[in-house]
């Protein structure tokens, strides 16, 4: 095992300080007594209290949660199907177009995706709201799910599927009893990825939301435009806490599976 040189140690310390200090500062100041975000005047949790009284934020959080859950579930189903098509379906008419449409949204600027979807919804006369945000999020998230799942699928030994057929499964039965359990980790991380993407999205939601629905990022954006506020710090701290908790528990559970495997 190599020892880190002083250069590498300094680089790592500075690099991670750069990545994490801003977030740390934000969290610290969410407990600040003063309305002035940048001047410390004492510990308090009053901004959390304020936050839970703010109905606009609560409403937006509820919208975001619903959009996130529904759109990432849709995206996971569609993205897994698309991964199957890319990895297993072989040649078919329009395959190049299909894979192009999977990869293009990954690099498409959000402003363009948002604008194009908005123009679509208007030209077919759909009322914008929760539904249109869900459709938009599901569309770009399915591409991410497809990438995650298809990379797992391409490592998948196809003879496992053939073995299932050989032992009497129908194709559908083989999918649910063999393929799905094996690719499940990728499908789950695809769902989580979609969910965070949806939770995070401001631009596409702003285009497709219409006046009737406001998501949390939209709400944060409009209040942040007016300047820094301790309430937003409190909200950010809660969101960061939830994500950290999720990531840590996910990594612990995979670690537990690994150690369990090693024990035997």
């Amino acid at each position: 095992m190599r020892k880190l040189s002083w250069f590498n140690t300094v680089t790592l310390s500075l690099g991670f300080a750069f990545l994490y200090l801003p977030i740390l500062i934000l969290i610290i100041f969410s407990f600040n007594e003063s309305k002035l975000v940048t001047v410390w005047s004492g510990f308090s949790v009053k901004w959390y209290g304020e936050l839970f009284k703010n109905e606009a934020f609560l409403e937006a959080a509820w919208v975001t949660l619903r959009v996130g859950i529904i759109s990432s579930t849709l995206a996971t189903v569609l993205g897994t199907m698309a991964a199957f098509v890319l990895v297993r379906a072989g040649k078919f008419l329009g395959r190049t177009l299909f894979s192009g449409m999977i990869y293009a949204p990954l690099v498409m600027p959000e402003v363009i995706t948002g604008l194009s979807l908005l123009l679509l919804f208007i030209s077919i006369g759909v009322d914008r709201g929760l539904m249109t945000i869900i459709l938009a999020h599901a569309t770009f998230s399915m591409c991410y799910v497809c990438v995650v799942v298809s990379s797992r699928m391409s490592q998948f030994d196809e003879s496992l599927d053939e073995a299932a057929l050989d032992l009497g499964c129908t194709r559908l039965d083989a999918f649910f009893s063999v393929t799905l359990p094996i690719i499940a980790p990728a499908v789950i991380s695809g769902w989580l990825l979609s969910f965070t993407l949806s939770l995070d999205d401001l631009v596409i939601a702003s285009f497709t939301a219409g006046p009737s629905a406001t998501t949390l990022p939209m709400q944060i954006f409009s209040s942040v435009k007016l300047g820094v506020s301790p309430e937003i710090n409190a909200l950010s701290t809660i969101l960061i806490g939830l994500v950290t908790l999720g990531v840590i528990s996910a990594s612990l559970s995979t670690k537990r599976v690994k150690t369990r495997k090693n024990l035997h």
Partner: protein
Amino acid sequence: MQMNWPRKLLIGIPFLWLLALFLVPFLIILKISLSDPVLAIPPYSPRLDLSNGFEGIITFFSELDFENYIFLSEDSLYWKAYISSIKISAIATFFTLMIGFPLAYAMSNASENWRTPLLMLIILPFWTSFLIRIYSWMGILSNTGLINQLLLWMGVISEPIIILNTNTAVYIGIVYTYLPFMVLPIYATLDRLDGSLLEAAQDLGCTRFSAFWLVTLRLAKPGIAAGCFLVFIPVIGEFVIPSLLGGSRTLMIGKVLWDEFFANRDWPIASAVAVFLLLILLIPIVLFQRNEEKQREHER
């Protein structure tokens, strides 16, 4: 294999979904970018009227023109915005590389036990909100922010320097939020690098530095290229960073498009801006994909 029903459904459902919600919307943008703005809802003309049959289609096409694109090229605001976006993106990509490469290099040199947690720490910010991460800098960079407080307290400056709402703040924001995109692909190539190659180079007479220059850096090239594209491409269309950290003089095309649409309600111009933005992005995207393919071939 035959085209049986389950197979048709498997291909058809995601295919139609993407056609309807990705390709068709894009064609609509293209079409509107060729239309004229009018004061109506929706605020553009012509609209495709199929009730007149074939003649309707002909009149529809004959009324489309490139007026918006001509306008785009005549008004210096737009092409200045495009050039400024490319410039900001290129400079920010350079800074991200300068910070990201040493970080990835140090990570790949860490001991086995450390690498996984370090990788986790790089990925973790991915999962936390983009918006919040940019917001966190607003408090740090503002006139009464932490940096100014610190510098004033140390006596380096006598009155606050303005960082927030300048291009400097935009660069800091971009480097901060896009750093993982740079570190991960570079780390991936460095991690795969066979340590005995460096030993071989030194055995053959290289100094440690020239071995790094001649071997490590050359072999990390695909990762560096991938990282640069992953930062450069999305930053060109970036909206949130310039609108929160940038000032009135920060000109970026994503923000122009947003304002054109939401503030001016000029849909045809907004669409033309979008189409032209995509044309600009096409070149780096194609280059990026070629780089990825080359890398994939190497792995075989």
